[in-house]
Every structure is written in C-alpha cells, then in structure tokens.
C-alpha cells in the first residue's frame, strides 16, 4: 500500500494528458453536438507529426507545438468540409457517430500506411528525476504536467473572459439565439474545433511522451479514457471534463497499483458506471449548468 502515494504521481501525469483531450472532445460536442470518435485517431496523427518534426531535428516541445497547430487545422477542416455538410443534410446523431468511426479507421490506417505498424519514440533528453514528497517525476513528465495545467487555466480564461470564448458558450447554449444576436455561428464553430484540435494535437504528443512510444493504435486505446472522463464530468461540460480527467487519470494508476495492471481499466470503468448510476448526467451536470460553464 505504500505505493499508493507514488502512483498518485503517475495518476496526475495521466490526468494532465487526459485533460486537454477530454476538454477538446467535450468542446466539440458542446459546440456542434458531434461525438467525435475520430478524436483519438487525430491525436495519433498529431503524435506522428511531432515524431517527424523531432526526426527533422526540432526539440520535442517545438515538435509538440507544430503538432498542435497541425491538429488544430485538421480538426477545423474536418468539421468544415466533412461534418458540417453531413449535418446540413440532416444526418442524425448516430449517423454522425458512424461517420466519425469511419474517419477514425481511415486516419488510423493512413498513419499505419505512412509510418508503419511498429511503434516509434521521441528522443527525450534529461532523464533526471525530481522528487516531490514520495512522488518522483522525470523532467518531461513535469513539463507534461505544466502543459496540462496551462490548458486548464487557458480554457477557463478563454471561455470566461474573452469575447470569442463567450461566443463559443453562447453558440453551445442556443445556436439560433446566438445567431440572432449577430454571432456568425459557423465562424465560432470553426474556432471551437480549432481550439479542440489544438488540445487534441498537444494531448497526442503528451501521450507519446508519457507512454515513451507512439504507435498507430495509440489514440484508439486512449479514446476510451477520454470518453470516460468526458462522460464522468457530464458530456459537453468543460469543467466536468477537467474533473473527469483528474478522477479517471488517478483511478487508472491507483487501481493498477492496488489491483494489478490488468485490472486498472476495469476498476476505473466500474467507478464510471457507479457514478453514472447515481448521477446519470455526470458529476458536474447540474452544478455546471447553473454555473454556466458548459
């Protein structure tokens, strides 16, 4: 049991990676009502873009920035030229889910085709450990943690204090009313997908750093955890996704220690199911709605 605290460190790192991913995923849902199953595949794509950048001699952090920008553009283009046309035709919610599943497979196999089925890894320097109480972190893990925190604060600042962020919330709340207030909903939706793609891209690279390898199925596996975090917090609730990321991230690592690695996902999802039995709309749904943080 004396491993509980040290593994809390791993949990926090997992949560830091999960946070931008879950927030990006939930932001897409609240802005457009699309549950984007291809989100994991987009993360993988961005992780490989970063790999290419590091191969070209860029530092991992510059590579991450480049991958995040690529992820943002890919996400916005995907929404504008694939999902929006489908939505205009009146494709149902489940129809859209199927479209994004198809896209996920397409991206995944494209990545395999280009970069091959074998995992690659980023050249990470400075393996020195930093000890914080019973927890220890590598330097790159600490940077991942810092980036996670920056994304949390940045999302909060964007949605709460900027005109564009408030417009995103208005469109998510009531698209027609937002348009009748003069907001170009299409442009704001593009912005929301740009931001969520940025977070997804960065999260992909962060995941590659945490796992110390990047494979074409990486995002696919991680998607389950993203969905769990988003659902736990109440889908569409940005602050809920942050809390969900923290809970799922820590649970995954703690249960790996307490019950053994094979049981980690099972116990994390058992908790998810339990929470949903008690609060079907997620932890923060009620509070979040009243606080206006959707």
């Amino acid at each position, binding site marked *: 049991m004396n491993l509980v605290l040290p593994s809390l460190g791993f949990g926090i790192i997992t949560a830091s990676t999960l946070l931008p991913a879950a927030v990006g995923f939930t932001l897409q849902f609240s802005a457009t009502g699309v549950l984007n199953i291809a989100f994991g595949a987009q993360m993988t794509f961005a992780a490989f873009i970063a790999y290419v950048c590091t191969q070209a001699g860029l530092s991992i952090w510059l590579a991450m920035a480049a991958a995040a920008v690529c992820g943002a553009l890919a996400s916005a283009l995907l929404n504008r030229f694939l999902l929006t046309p489908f939505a205009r035709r009146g494709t149902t919610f489940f129809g859209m889910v199927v479209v994004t599943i198809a896209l996920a497979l397409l991206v995944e196999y494209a990545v395999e085709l280009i970069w091959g089925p074998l995992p690659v890894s980023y050249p990470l320097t400075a393996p020195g450990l930093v000890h914080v109480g019973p927890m220890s972190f590598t330097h790159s893990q600490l940077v991942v943690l810092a980036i996670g925190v920056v994304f949390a604060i940045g999302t909060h600042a964007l949605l709460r204090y900027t*005109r564009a962020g*408030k*417009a995103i*919330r*208005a469109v*998510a*709340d*009531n698209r*027609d*009313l*937002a*348009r*009748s*207030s*003069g*907001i*170009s*909903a299409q442009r704001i939706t593009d912005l929301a997908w740009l931001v969520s793609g940025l977070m997804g891209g960065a999260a992909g690279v962060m995941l590659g750093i945490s796992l110390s390898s990047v494979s074409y199925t990486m995002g696919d596996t991680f998607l389950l955890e993203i969905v769990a975090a988003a659902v736990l917090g109440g889908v569409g609730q940005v602050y809920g996704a942050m809390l969900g990321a923290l809970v799922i991230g820590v649970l995954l690592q703690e249960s790996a220690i307490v019950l053994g690695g094979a049981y980690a996902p099972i116990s994390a999802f058992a908790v998810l199911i339990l929470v949903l039995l008690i609060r079907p709309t997620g932890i923060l749904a009620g509070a979040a*709605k*009243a*606080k*206006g*943080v*959707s």
Partner: protein
Amino acid sequence: MMPASEHVPASAAPARAADCLQVRDLTAGYGGPPVVRGISLGLGQGQVAVIAGPNGAGKSTLVKSIVGHLRCASGSVTAGGRDITNHPPEKIARGGVGYVPQNEDAFGTMTVLENLEIGGYLLKKRAVGPRIAEVMEVFPALGRMRKRHVSRLSGGERKMVAIGRVLMLRPRLLILDEPTAGLAVALTTELFERYIPALSATGVGVLLVEQKATEALRVADWGYILVSGQVHVSEPASTILSRPDIGEVFLGGSSSVLAGED
C-alpha cells in the same frame, strides 16, 4: 362567428408607410405543407403592430421566417428598405432587427451580464460597457442581478434579460414573440404601458405577437389576426378593439369557437 367578408386578401394590405418592415406574400413552413400562406403586412417606424390569433395559427412560424430561422418558400421580407428575405439570422440582426423568441429567449448557462455582452457582440469593444450601463438604466433590476445565472431567474426576470439583450444593438425593429406568456400581470402592464410606448417613441418599430391581444392592441397602431396561417383581419388596432365580434372570437378567449369551425 366570423363573417367571410372579414378575410382580407393579401393584395389589400394597408397602404401605410411600411418603412420599418414590409412582408409581401410570404409562404413558409417546416418542409411539409406550408404553415403560413400569402402573408402580407407592414410596419412603419415608431409604430406598434400586434399579430394575434389562436394557437397554431402560425404566428411563431411567421416571425421565425422573418428573422431568418425558417426559410421562406416564397414572398419577400424587407426591413428598413433593405431586402432580408432568407438572409442568415446573424445578418438580419446586423441589419437592426431584434428578435426575442417565445421560449429559450436568453442564454441560461450564462450570467445576466454575459447575456448583455453577447447582445452587444456586434458593437465595438469599447462601446459594450457604456451600452450595458444604458440598458441597465432602462431596467434597473438587471443591474442588481448582473452576476446571477439566467437559469436561476424567474420567468419575468428572464424576459427582462431577453429584452435587455436585444436592446443592446439599438434595433430599429423589435420582434417580440409572446413576451407576456408566463409573465405576472404587473409586469405585463408595465411592458405594454411603459416600455413599448417608450421604445416606439424613439422610432423603433415593434412587432408584437400575442395570443390574448386586447391589452397589446391598446398600445398598438395596427392589428393583424392570423387564422390557419393566413391574415384574417388587418385593421387599425382601435377598430379591432371596438368590434365585439372580433374581440369575442380572437382576443378574450376561447379559441374553441374557432377550433369548432376548422
């Protein structure tokens, strides 16, 4: 019962100055058979017009197609002399048309202050704050609840937020869809006797949808009565009020008389 002669065909729309809003022969619906057919109406600057009529007559459908939430199958809409037929809602808002829907009339997940900020989205950043102060002068209660979330407000408070939001852009035409539904009597009276006359005095044209329209007609210049998607009566408000035959059927009350006719 309603004599057939009451029906005013579209071509006989009143020849008044309709410089604020002019709807000509508008037909619209939700994809199936049209809900409103051949509607014509006009509104001058500083005038108040009421659209009354029983439930399901197509009042909300009509205003939704005016403000761009529904496609007009045929006909035209001009506001302030410019054609806005089938323009996107954000463009119509930019053209000085303010719209307060019947339901979901404010952003429930946002604070009162944020609702006003969104209302002023098209203003220059520097102009938003001063304009919010002005709107709060009109509705002092908004200032007192600025930090509160709209989902926690009462129906009357929420409607005030909705109207405050739409006033942010200083619209030349204000369209209110059943603003008094669920409103306390005192607030309804205040809206009709104080705010709407004050707005029209500044040159704003007000198009008011009301199911029970007697009170609304008292402050209005013109009244339209919609039945089954068509303009059934188009008369000066005072004329409609003075005619008990119309009043009994459409304004006071039981739409069951009509339901029986249909």
